[in-house]
């Protein structure tokens, strides 16, 4: 990444002491390619879709991007740390179901359910992490197990407790409106309505970037993902780092889950299956390597933005809906290719 071979003809100083110009630093960032891809997708839809550039439309796109991005950011951190979480999609639904059903069954203030849900969801993250470091199988298999178990538990418990496949409405309970303000409200700027999920998304990006670039934990994450044995040898607490990363994903699932609950009042127990892939896709478009050790939180957020712009842009462009998935796939592939090309060029100019 930042390692640069000394240019021929210059006196050979220690490469680690080389000064890099801010421009070069920027060109070396993992998110650069995805930013270029995002700009390209934006310009494309600005040209082909009449209604895409309106402020209200952009607010819709940002909402779509934020609901993916809230999860894509912690998922990206986990991937930088070299692991996957296939349970991330249904965990969102689990988290929403817990708050809803706990509040309802206990006739408790909604915030109590929200708190219990946070602890329970973090516990699922801890479970994933502990299982991973205590046993042999790769995270792909372990979280696949969690994914299937959560899918079954979501349906099983909901039917057992509520009698139907969705939860009962908690919109008339105490604490609902304040919780709705926090997780599912709308902020009006000018005459455009922005969803509060955008704020959560930005906050997740800021915190994740700070952790990655400014803290010791951030170094640990890169080290663990770059080479686990080497990291362990130099004293990085590999187990704690990974458990922490899974808890980060769980926290994201909690935020998304609370949005799901407070936006719709009731939760459908079958939701969320398949979304885990979208989070991983967003992280990869944003420059995360599937092999770990490389990537950024901003990149994952931009990946989510590309996904949001593409999936809604196709609707704004009013293309034939039968071909929606094809266009989505083709656009994402093009954005990713552009991303890879830009990164290669950037590395070549170093």
């Amino acid at each position: 990444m930042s390692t640069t071979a000394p240019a021929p003809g210059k006196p050979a100083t220690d490469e680690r002491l080389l000064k890099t110009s801010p421009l070069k630093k920027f060109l070396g960032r993992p998110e650069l390619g995805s930013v270029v891809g995002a700009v390209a997708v934006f310009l494309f839809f600005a040209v082909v879709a009449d209604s895409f550039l309106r402020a209200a439309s952009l607010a819709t796109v940002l909402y779509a991007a934020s609901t993916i991005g809230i999860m894509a950011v912690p998922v990206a951190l986990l991937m930088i740390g070299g692991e996957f979480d296939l349970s991330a999609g249904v965990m969102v639904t689990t988290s929403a179901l817990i708050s809803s059903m706990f509040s309802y069954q206990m006739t408790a203030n909604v915030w109590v359910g929200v708190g219990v849900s946070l602890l329970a969801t973090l516990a699922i993250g801890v479970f994933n992490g502990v299982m991973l470091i205590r046993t042999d199988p790769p995270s792909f298999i372990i979280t696949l197990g969690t994914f299937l178990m959560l899918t079954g538990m979501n349906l099983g418990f909901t039917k057992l407790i509520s009698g139907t496949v969705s939860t009962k409405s908690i919109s008339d309970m105490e604490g609902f409106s304040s919780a709705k303000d926090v997780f599912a409200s709308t902020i009006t700027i000018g005459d455009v309505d922005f969803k509060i999920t955008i704020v959560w998304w930005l906050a997740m990006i800021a915190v994740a970037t700070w952790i990655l670039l400014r803290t010791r934990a951030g170094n640990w994450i890169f080290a663990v993902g770059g080479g686990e044995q080497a990291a362990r040898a130099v004293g990085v607490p590999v187990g704690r780092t990974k458990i922490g990363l899974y808890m980060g994903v769980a926290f994201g699932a909690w935020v998304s889950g609370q949005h799901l609950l407070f936006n719709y009042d009731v939760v459908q127990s079958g939701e969320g299956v398949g979304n885990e892939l979208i989070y991983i896709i967003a992280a990869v478009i944003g420059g995360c390597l599937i092999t770990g050790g490389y990537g950024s939180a901003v990149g994952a957020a931009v990946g989510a933005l590309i996904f949001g712009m593409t999936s809604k842009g196709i609707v704004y462009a009013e293309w034939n809906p039968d071909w929606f998935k094809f266009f989505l796939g083709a656009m994402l592939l093009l954005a990713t290719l552009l991303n890879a090309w830009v990164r290669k060029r950037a590395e070549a100019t170093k």
Partner: protein
Amino acid sequence: MRTARTAAALIAVVALAAGCSSSGGKDDESDGGSGGGGKAVDTPRLKIAMVTHSGEGDTFWDIVQNGAKEAAKKDNVEFLYSNDKEGKGQAELVQTAIDKKVDGIVVTLAKPEAMKSVLGKARAAGIPVVTINSGAEFSARFGALSHIGQDESVAGEAVGDELTGRGKKKALCVIHEQGNVSLEQRCAGVKKTFGGAVENLNVDGTNAPGAQSSISAKLQATKGIDAVVTLGAPIAAVSVKAKEDAGSEAEIDTFDLNAEVVKRLKADEVGFAVDQQPYLQGYLAIDELWLYRTNANVLGGGKPVLTGPAVVTRKDVPKLEKYTARGTR
């Protein structure tokens, strides 16, 4: 494991310190009572398997099962339910029912070709079959006794008529599962009888925020949409949100019912719903097999028995509320 213990302790503390809600919740529940009951008949115990193409956690199939269970209780029937979205998986489940030597099989024919040979085996084994929900045209051909369901095209046409009657000009048909034949048939039916224009939109039904933003995007992009037709009850609630986001005046109308839709009908956020009475599909299928086994009765006279469409509006809400809450409508 310190983290886990701390978490457990925290949960306990939070739960103890819990403020209670003085409104809503379980304490506020009035006893709806579950209908039916009564003593079972004294015919011999039968075993009937139902195998559907349902995905996980679908309200609709939950209601079908509730109907089937109620009939099973009354008819002294042991009711076995299983489901698989994939045609091949569904056929395997039917095979396991044949292996178990059940006294009757209820199946859906969403993927008719996949079911053809296994239903032949059921017939060869002398097990009577009743088909429900979709696939009416294949039912008799595959040797089923009766078909109990809704004709999707007819249901779509009913929606088209209702929309025309309400003076709508441009409708959006939201397909929440791309490539599902019966959903396409519904939209095609709407198109056939509706006086105005119909546009289709594909959304991902298992991702509510994603579906919501897609529907608002469509409402923002296409001017003049004055009706949004959703093909499943959960998507109706999502569309209500999308409409608010887009600042649209469109009326939300939907296929199928659930408690949430009834609430929104009452609040005037949903114009009308077309119910295909899934409870009846489950109940009648079990009852028909019991009647056949105990009295050789056959329902329908070779024609499908239709359970819908029934148009439900705000004025039907009072009598429906308690039934949707207990999951039978």
